[in-house]
């Protein structure tokens, strides 16, 4: 009894209710659409139809089923998102270090960082493409650009959040700047760094898909736009929608897992 009660108030239960709620709403919408639109699968198909299409063995482009198309292109997109994410996270962290080390750099650089963040990806893509002259490189660059900002700002906040007494302790034993960073500031900023990584990991994936749509050469975004233009079954589109949502959530949890692995002291907390 106690266990049942615990389950119903648990975090898992919240998730279950939340997912079921969305499914119910979706299905209500699908029923309405099915009764009013001529090709309802273009607007809102039933969930079972999407699931069916995943397991369908029908070849949609002559050699692959819809799900095989999604998987083979996902590899490309996620690879580019991953590389961009790693580069962006690295640059973001270094930038935070630099901004914290040299006050004027923060004052000079920070406004530009915000401006870069405010340019829409679709506006930025042609500029990056003109610079890199390669669509695949620019996809990676754009994933990196979207990644570095949350990482840089959060890590910087982490450096700045260290209590005065901790600085004074280091000062009182005449620690060098290098020691203050390696033994105090960087370890303290780890939870903040991961907050940044958790925000930017799904963003890198979304950005990567979006930039895929701009040109050919494979990737989830390419397939997505082809599917929308009816070059192949619309269910490729729906599968990609769900697939990228799931991968985005998984990327968040991957960051949480890595965080737990690198910070054992927090594991006992939760």
């Amino acid at each position, binding site marked *: 009894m106690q266990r049942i009660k615990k389950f119903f108030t648990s975090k898992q239960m919240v998730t279950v209710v939340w997912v079921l709620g969305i499914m119910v709403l979706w299905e209500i919408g699908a029923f309405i659409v099915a009764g009013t639109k001529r090709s309802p699968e273009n607007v809102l198909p039933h969930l079972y139809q999407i699931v069916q299409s995943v397991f369908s063995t029908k070849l949609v482009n002559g050699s692959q089923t819809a799900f095989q198309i999604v998987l083979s292109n996902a590899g490309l997109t996620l690879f580019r998102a991953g590389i961009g994410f790693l580069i962006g996270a690295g640059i973001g962290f270094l930038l935070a270090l630099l901004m914290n080390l040299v006050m004027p750099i923060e004052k000079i650089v920070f406004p530009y960082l915000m401006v870069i963040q405010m340019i829409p990806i679709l506006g930025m893509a042609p500029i990056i493409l003109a610079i890199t002259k390669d669509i695949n490189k620019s996809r990676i660059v754009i994933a990196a650009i979207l990644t570095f900002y949350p990482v840089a700002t959060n890590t910087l906040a982490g450096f700045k959040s260290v209590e005065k*007494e901790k600085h*004074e302790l280091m000062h*009182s*034993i005449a620690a060098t700047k290098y*020691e203050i960073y390696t*033994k*105090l500031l960087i370890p303290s900023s*780890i939870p903040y760094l991961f907050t940044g990584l958790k925000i930017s990991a799904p963003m890198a994936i979304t950005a990567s898909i979006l930039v895929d749509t701009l040109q050919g050469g494979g990737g989830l975004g390419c397939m997505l736009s082809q599917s929308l233009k009816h070059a192949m079954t619309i269910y490729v589109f729906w599968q990609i929608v769900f697939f990228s949502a799931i991968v985005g959530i998984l990327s968040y949890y991957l960051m949480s897992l890595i965080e737990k692995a690198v910070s054992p*002291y927090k594991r*006992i907390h939760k």
Partner: protein
Amino acid sequence: MNIAAGTKLEPEIIIDDLTVVFPSNNGGDPIKALKNINLEIGQGEFISLVGPSGCGKTTLLRTIADLQNPTTGSISIRGLTPKQIRMEKKFGIVFQSPVLYDWRTVRRNVCMPMEIKGLPKKHRTARVTEMLEMVGLYKFGKQYPHELSGGMQQRVGIARALAIDPEILLMDEPFSALDEFTKEKLHEDLLNIWRQTKKTIVFVTHNIQEAVFLSDRVVVLSPHPGRVSAVIDVNIPRPRALSIKRSAEFNALVAEVRSSFEGV
């Protein structure tokens, strides 16, 4: 160890006409935190700085620790400036909060100052064990700070401060956040540690009983501007048991300190 008993100690810290002024940050008059402080602290002496809030006791401690610069006057420690002593890593500081690094185990927290001092690993390991045994936390070495009670965390802070074998232990209201029982236990422990290590201890507190129980001398500071209003010798023989808190002698001294408070 008793100054009034006639065993005049070699002065370790000489505070000479020290004044510390903080510039006001909203355009008003600058704040005189300390004014013309003269004080000598003997080698191996346990001295307490007491006073109401705003009397500058913490500022005085911070100036000794080179965390605050004097405006005029000077502090000399064994003939050197506080900065020179700090660069030699001869200070151990214990703050009001334990200031432990939550990503480090208890052992590695105690170890941290020795890493900065560049001591060899073998020496560090032995010393950490020795320190943790001294504060009675040897069994908790592999725990993380948040798994420990407040009193235990403060002990880790003391062990860490003593790990590099400092000449002077500076303590800024280290027990004020603890409950009465934990506090009394730590008082006894601190006196034992002091007896074993023979450090000079400068102890800031606003608790008169605590100051009288622990110290050789109690320095009473008065606020606005912070200045020394009384220096009271505590002639209670050592080792002191908790039971002395009920003695007439102890209570007379507490009353004497309190009256110099009220004269402020």
